[in-house]
């Protein structure tokens, strides 16, 4: 066991892999529509010094609600961005019922978070779509 522990002391991690980072904005947006679909535009930003792939996905509105929101379409859901580059994401809330207010979070993070890193960074925007009754 002691040998294992000593081995562990050396095997355990100099975590020098690239760090996690992402930028997204605006952090909130809302809109009213008279039809079943409402679109939003968000900006995804790569703060890395190198090209990096990011993914965007929709979850519940509460901070601890990670339920996937299947009514939300994201174009494109995955992006590879050059260093310090940004691009627009088109977010569409579908199947809005008359008079309905639909709220959800749109989150972005790296496609492959580095292993060994203590913190996985992500940014979420809170979006509200309301259809007129």
């Amino acid at each position, binding site marked *: 066991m002691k040998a294992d522990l000593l081995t562990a002391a050396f095997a355990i991690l100099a975590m020098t892999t690239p760090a996690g980072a992402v*930028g997204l904005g605006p952090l909130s947006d809302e809109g009213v529509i008279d039809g079943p679909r409402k679109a939003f535009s968000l*900006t995804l930003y790569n*703060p890395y010094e190198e090209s990096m792939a990011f993914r965007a996905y929709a979850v519940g509105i509460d901070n601890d609600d990670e339920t996937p929101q299947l009514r939300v379409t994201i174009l494109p859901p995955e992006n590879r961005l050059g260093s310090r580059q940004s691009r627009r994401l088109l977010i569409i809330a579908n199947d809005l019922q008359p008079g309905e207010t639909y709220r959800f979070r749109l989150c972005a993070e790296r496609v492959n978070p580095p292993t060994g890193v203590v913190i996985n960074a992500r940014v979420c925007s809170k979006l509200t779509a309301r259809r007129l009754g």
Partner: protein
Amino acid sequence: MASFRLSHAKYALIPALLMGAGSAQAQTVNLIGTVVNLCVLTISTPGSLAISSNGLQLSTTNGGLPASLTVVATGSNPTISFSSPSLVGPSSGGATTEVAYSSTGGASHAYDSSGYVYAMNRLLDTVTINGRASNSSGFRSGVYTISATATCSQ
């Protein structure tokens, strides 16, 4: 000689033209920009774990290194939500995993196995993150990772 006189005449005209233009055509110059509320999270230091001399604790303080999370926000003060930490590795079962947070901007959270919500009161801050995992049975050799998710939102 003729050329010399002509040059002087030209220079004499310049101030008069400038004065005339200034008084008759005053213009307002507007430089306009929009600040969108955007949040950029960067793990400026990934952090590392090292094992204690008795082999019962993995920590960022026993020769390891804390992680640093830099937050750059524009537009409005964001909230950073840290999920409960988890330990992945050969002896993760039975271990207690805790994380502590601090920053010059006011983040303060002692070692705890639960999550933490930091409501920022400024647009820029750097959060220092320390982690530790304790196991009374010790840790087998291998790679261990304490992980948590930091979410920037409003």
